[in-house]
């Protein structure tokens, strides 16, 4: 049942009061016309649908009949329209991989030999 809904039986499901709180958290905004509030809420619904369907279509989650976080962060990275989301949808990396990356960077910066076990202990302090 995939459709881009526009003004059917219910005008909008997202609560206008909450949308308004978010809009007003923006410092330069003084007042908001009722129609503008409605349109922002409706646009947000369309946005959610678009982000979800696009990510599903272009992602790998569908191999398991799912929409995954990875599908979303992939969209933010690859699709220009959604690039404004890149910072809040970062690609994920396993902690062990990240620690190895850090160790490699340390090693590359050092002239002498290193003791990997000691370095791991130091990392625990972080």
């Amino acid at each position: 049942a995939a459709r881009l809904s526009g003004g059917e039986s219910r005008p909008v499901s997202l609560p206008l009061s909450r949308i308004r709180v978010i809009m007003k958290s923006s410092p330069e905004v003084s007042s908001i016309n009722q129609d503008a509030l409605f349109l922002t809420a409706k646009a947000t619904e369309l946005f959610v649908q678009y982000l979800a369907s696009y990510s599903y279509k272009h992602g790998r989650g569908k191999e398991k009949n799912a929409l995954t976080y990875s599908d979303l962060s992939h969209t933010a990275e690859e699709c220009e329209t959604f690039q404004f989301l890149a910072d809040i949808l970062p690609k994920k990396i396993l902690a062990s991989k990240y620690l190895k990356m850090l160790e490699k960077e340390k090693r590359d910066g050092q002239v002498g030999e290193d003791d990997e076990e000691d370095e791991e202990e130091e990392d625990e302090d972080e």
Partner: protein
Amino acid sequence: MAERPEDLNLPNAVITRIIKEALPDGVNISKEARSAISRAASVFVLYATSCANNFAMKGKRKMLNAGDVLSAMEEMEFQRFVTPLKESLEVYRREQKGKKEARKDKDKKADSEEQDKSREEDNDDDDERIEEEEPNEEEEVDN
């Protein structure tokens, strides 16, 4: 007014429903994905508001209106939203007008007076000019 962190989030149940409507039946949505989309939606509101506000400032207005939001959508490369938004807005405006009339009727009936409804229908033309800068209501929304 101080916003608590949860106020800047949108209700999970509603977000989930909207996502489900966009995907084929039976597709699973991980909690992480749902939470990420919810955050993305909040960011979208902020981005759209900021963009719309720029248009209002260009027009030397302090109040954001419908036209500003539609212009923001085009600017943000969401032109595909513009037509469905305009259609929704028409429906919404009609409903709001209907509610207003219902309230007026209630008040008048309470006073035991009959209202002449045919006069109201002549005002329909005003509502269809969506792009104009004249806002429907000048007052701020307090839900």
